[in-house]
């Protein structure tokens, strides 16, 4: 299955064609991901416009400081991922391993903050519709709707990160075994595209969920 000799697979003319085929496939997958998250963003836009006050209240209940911290962590992990791709392109195995581990650690930090700090706190405060929702202020049912969007959107995003961590683990093992070099690094680069895409989703989630509530 895995031919460790041939750099260019049989069906391709050369490395450039192979690289572009891989990139195009990944970008088409990312296009389907844009449509997947796009449905959630569309629903959010509609209900935010219908129940603006409730959504601003809900947004205000979230901790923007943690949101900003997590944004910074995710951007840093995108940097280390880009550096991992660069290390693979220049054939530096030790650096590649170091940057893959850094990316995984930063991703894990994001997930740990989200699960054990943020969501635990949200649960204790009673913001979880269906499980523990005790908010009784004005527009309570529409604030619950906001919280549904919040948990589903950040939850699906977190799920993408967990999947990314899994693929990174596989790539780490492959890098450890010396499977990548200057001529063979497509897998690392495609993983980079995925990881940066997940970062971009968060770049939109952060202002929409955390920042658009009147704090002044």
């Amino acid at each position, binding site marked *: 299955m895995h031919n460790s000799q041939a750099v260019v697979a049989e069906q391709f003319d*050369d*490395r*450039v064609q192979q*690289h*572009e085929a891989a*990139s*195009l496939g990944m*970008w*088409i997958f*990312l*296009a389907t991901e*844009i*449509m997947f998250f*796009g*449905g959630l*963003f*569309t629903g959010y*836009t*509609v209900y935010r*416009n*219908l129940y603006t006050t409730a959504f601003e209240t809900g947004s205000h209940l979230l901790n*923007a400081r943690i*949101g*900003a911290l997590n*944004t*910074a962590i995710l*951007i*840093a992990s*995108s*940097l280390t*991922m*880009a*550096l991992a791709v*660069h290390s693979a*392109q*220049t054939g530096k195995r030790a650096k590649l391993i170091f940057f893959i581990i850094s990316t995984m650690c930063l991703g894990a930090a994001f997930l740990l903050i989200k699960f054990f700090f943020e969501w635990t706190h949200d649960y204790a405060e009673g913001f979880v519709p269906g499980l523990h929702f005790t908010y009784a202020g004005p527009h309570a049912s529409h604030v619950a709707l906001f919280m549904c969007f919040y948990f589903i959107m950040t939850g699906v995003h977190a799920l993408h990160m967990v999947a990314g961590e899994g693929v990174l683990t596989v790539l780490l093992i492959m890098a450890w075994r010396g499977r990548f070099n200057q001529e063979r690094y497509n897998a690392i*680069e495609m993983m*980079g*595209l995925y990881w*940066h*895409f997940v*970062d*971009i989703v968060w*770049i*939109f989630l*952060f*202002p*929409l969920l*955390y*920042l*658009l509530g*009147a*704090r*002044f």
Partner: protein
Amino acid sequence: MSEHIAPLKIYFFVFVALMVLTLLTWRISYIDLGQWNTVVALLIAVCKASLVAAFFMHLRWSASVMRLVLFAAIFWLSILISLTIGDIFSRHVLPQPQSWHAAAAITNPSATAQGR
């Protein structure tokens, strides 16, 4: 070399720019700009996403077919959002045809009493 290898300093420059924009969008959310809060937040998000796509995702150097795929996705997404919003927010502007009320009366007699 076939594929473009970007110089390292570009990555660090983009990283700093993304961090500055994150700080900016977070601090701006504490200032009352009225309707402009939403516009500014989304503009900054688009700027950040463009930086990530152009440099971290190598779109600046890759074949134009990758950009085509991205623009196609954004185009379909804009159709999804604009038509959905157009529907939801024009319902009170455009009256429902009378025939719809008649049909509703047959299938669900209680619904017509309240109308819409």
